[in-house]
């Protein structure tokens, strides 16, 4: 039984998983928040898709004999069209747009010449498999270097950017995810490649002010659509509001020279001279100016400000601090001479009561079932009294810190974003 809003998703996913005639019946939408009496009316009423009585559909689904089609086995191949298309640039631009291959902004049409030029940005062979990607609980699609190159061209990348796009693609992490939650994504770039490619990690680092920042982030979304089959509303994408950050995915080249701390990729086990891209997933980014205490003119305490911001986040995702170098310098003056010290303080001092915790959507949806299974710390948290105080995030490792920005003012930003994976860019050069 599925609510009507997810009809296409349910039918398509059943078909993709090998049961195109799976018996699915539908209730009105939503079920969430309805009283037992309201839901009883659903159960005693019609299936809003078929128009037949819902419970007759249920009983029939369990008892009507199978057809020959229902009993079929075997393999069905799926076509995504020919390897190439031939037409004018204008018509191809329209064709790619109308077929959902783009982010609905104009693209660079991936002509064979431009794709060949992109392929010169890597030593890897065009037919080498790069990875697999799924935009949710779907069968993953696979792709090779040439297919990734076509997407990099479309996003406006230069060939020298291509190893970063390949590294992102090799992670298998899509930047468009099927959830109704409208997830956001982010990538942190570390290493000498930031200067070689002229990334902007200074003034306006998160804004539209440099080609690598702009196009590599865009490439992640375009390739997630085309290589991972993500971003099809009603099918592989269900975000109710969507997320504007999906256009570019919050590209953060770390301002390593201006940071008082070790860069993120070193924390993740790489050497400082390595070129690395680290990927994050979550709900979004908020400005530090909204934190309590952010207007203080003297004795500015960014640790308390950040903790205040994180207290509004869901602990299901992590906390990513994006600190302007001025913020980082101030924090060091306060005694946080390592990222680990700041993380330890934030983990211990960003707290909530058990009552508040249990009232959160994500706690019910994800943590409560884990608690029932005995997973910690959730099992212990659910046994505590309502007024007990617990950490807002389950683990200190849920916090990450990067330093970026132009030092025009001491403002942090904070992402409700979880660290996913760090990938070597050099491997794909």
């Amino acid at each position, binding site marked *: 039984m599925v609510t009507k809003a997810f009809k296409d998703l349910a039918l398509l996913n059943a078909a993709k998983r090998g049961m195109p005639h799976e018996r699915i019946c539908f209730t009105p939408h939503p079920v969430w928040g309805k009283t037992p009496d309201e839901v009883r009316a659903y*159960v005693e009423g019609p299936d809003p898709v078929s128009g037949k009585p819902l419970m007759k559909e249920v009983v029939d689904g369990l008892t009507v004999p*199978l057809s020959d089609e229902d009993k079929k086995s075997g393999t069905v191949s799926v076509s995504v069209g020919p390897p190439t298309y031939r037409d004018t640039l204008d018509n191809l631009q329209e064709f790619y747009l109308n077929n959902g291959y783009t982010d609905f902004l104009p693209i660079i049409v991936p002509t064979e010449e431009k794709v060949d030029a992109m392929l010169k940005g890597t030593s890897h062979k065009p037919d080498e498999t790069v990875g697999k990607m799924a935009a949710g609980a779907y069968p993953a699609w*696979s792709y090779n270097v040439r297919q990734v190159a076509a997407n990099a061209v479309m996003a406006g990348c230069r060939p020298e950017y291509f190893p970063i796009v390949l590294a992102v693609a090799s992670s298998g992490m899509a930047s468009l995810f099927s959830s109704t939650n409208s997830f956001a994504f982010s990538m942190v770039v570390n290493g000498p490649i930031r200067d070689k490619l002229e990334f902007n990690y200074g003034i306006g680092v998160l804004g539209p002010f440099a080609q690598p920042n702009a196009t590599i982030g865009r490439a992640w979304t*375009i390739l997630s659509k085309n290589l991972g089959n993500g971003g099809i509303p009603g099918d592989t994408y269900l975000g109710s509001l969507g997320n504007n950050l999906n256009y570019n995915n919050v590209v953060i080249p770390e301002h390593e020279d201006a940071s008082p701390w070790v860069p993120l990729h070193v924390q993740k086990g790489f050497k400082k001279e390595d070129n690395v891209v680290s990927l994050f997933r979550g709900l979004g980014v908020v400005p530090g100016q909204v934190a309590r205490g952010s207007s203080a003119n003297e004795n500015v305490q960014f640790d308390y400000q950040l903790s205040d911001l994180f207290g509004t986040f869901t602990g299901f995702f992590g906390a990513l601090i994006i600190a302007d170098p001025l913020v980082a310098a101030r924090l060091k003056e306060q005694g946080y001479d390592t990222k680990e010290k700041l993380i330890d303080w934030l983990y211990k001092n960003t707290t909530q009561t058990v009552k508040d915790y249990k009232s959160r959507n994500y706690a019910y949806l994800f943590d409560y079932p884990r608690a029932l299974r005995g997973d910690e710390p959730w099992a212990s948290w659910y046994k505590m009294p309502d007024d007990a105080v617990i950490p807002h995030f389950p683990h200190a490792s849920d916090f990450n810190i990067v330093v970026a920005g132009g030092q025009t003012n001491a403002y942090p930003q904070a992402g409700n974003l979880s660290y996913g994976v760090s990938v070597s860019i050099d491997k794909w050069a």
Partner: protein
Amino acid sequence: MSPALLAGAPAEAQEKKPATALHGAASHASSGKVTAVNPKGTPPPIQLIPMAPRLTSLDGKTVYLVDTGFHGSDVLLMQVQAWFGRNMPSVTTVFKRKAGPYMEDDPALWKEIKAKGNAVIMAVGH
């Protein structure tokens, strides 16, 4: 269901705006044509799964009602359980909440249902 739909092609967009490329509807002279690379990845083939045999009747049978964990699933399945009680009292219903978050598998429950149940109703999304 068409291979294009299964591949995730935007059927709605295709219906509204038939693609001009590939069909000779070029707006420029043919000498202006270029060859462009298909940016799509490679979908896996679909392995068809024969559906489980159906029961001839639910009379005297045990039907598991499995809550996926989405909000309201429990309320809905309780009402389904009550409906069976009122309308098909010979059916035994067993309510179970699937272990773990909704996206995780629960092989122990599937094993229990195979051993003790005759049918399953699973619900629901939001």
